[in-house]
């Protein structure tokens, strides 16, 4: 069998990224859209750690830790916005969140 190279990990990361993009673009449930964004960030992390292994230093892994920290902050704030909006209008459907529409 062909040995597992960096390209294999990059293809897996690209597949996860595209699945996250599909989730953001097509789902109507806001919570699932937010979870798809987390999937996108994970795909980027996998990319970084694969390159870090390829080059032999740890810069990619340190960057990946920062991305995890940022994803945690972003998830907390995004879910806070969702709860505040849900208190205003009882829906979690992205099609019905159109108060700013002209």
């Amino acid at each position: 069998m062909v040995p597992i190279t960096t390209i294999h990990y990059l293809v897996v990361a690209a597949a996860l990224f595209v699945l996250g993009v599909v989730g953001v673009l097509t789902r109507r449930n806001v919570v699932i859209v937010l979870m798809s964004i987390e999937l996108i960030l994970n795909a980027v992390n996998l990319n970084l750690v694969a390159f870090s292994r390829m080059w032999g230093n740890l810069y990619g892994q340190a960057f990946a830790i920062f991305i995890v920290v940022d994803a945690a902050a972003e998830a907390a704030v995004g879910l806070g916005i969702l709860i505040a909006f849900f208190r205003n209008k009882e829906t979690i459907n992205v099609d019905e969140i159109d108060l700013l529409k002209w």
Partner: protein
Amino acid sequence: MNPIMNPAINPGAAPVATPFFFYLLSGVAIISALLMITRRNAVHSALALILTLLSVAGLYLMLYAPFVAGVQIIVYGGGIMVLFLFVIMLVNIERVTRERQFNRMWPVGLLASCALLALFLGAFEKGKSLLPDRLMQIPEASNTQGIAVLLYGDAGRMGPYTFAFEIASLLLLVAILGAVIMTKKKI
């Protein structure tokens, strides 16, 4: 076989059932990501995402990154996904599971995502010759120690990521304040 991949010369390249675990973990990751974006029930999606995160943590272990794998499991699986599950239970409306799950422009979104995937695979095909063929030796210091040197500095000097580390803690403080203020009933 490439002489660099010969375990007699390069002990870091000894195959330890690597392809089996790689295909197993990446297959589980991609299938559970597919499950996540298609489930009707949001709790099922959250559980599928937890499975994806755990298999990606396994892939980090295969890439000789145990610290990032630990951070992934503890912070993502044990923190962020628990937060998501709490919020799903807070905004749980029964009628959402009976409505249409995908918006009306889903073919356009799918087509755009296929174009993006084709772009990625094209970039990999063209840039394949740029990636070095050698496998790096596993460094002597432990992985956690190496990341600690990057984040905290070494022997009294600042590391390359020390300033970013302090800014990240400030970012977390701002996120906590924002989340608390936004969810209060009266500010």
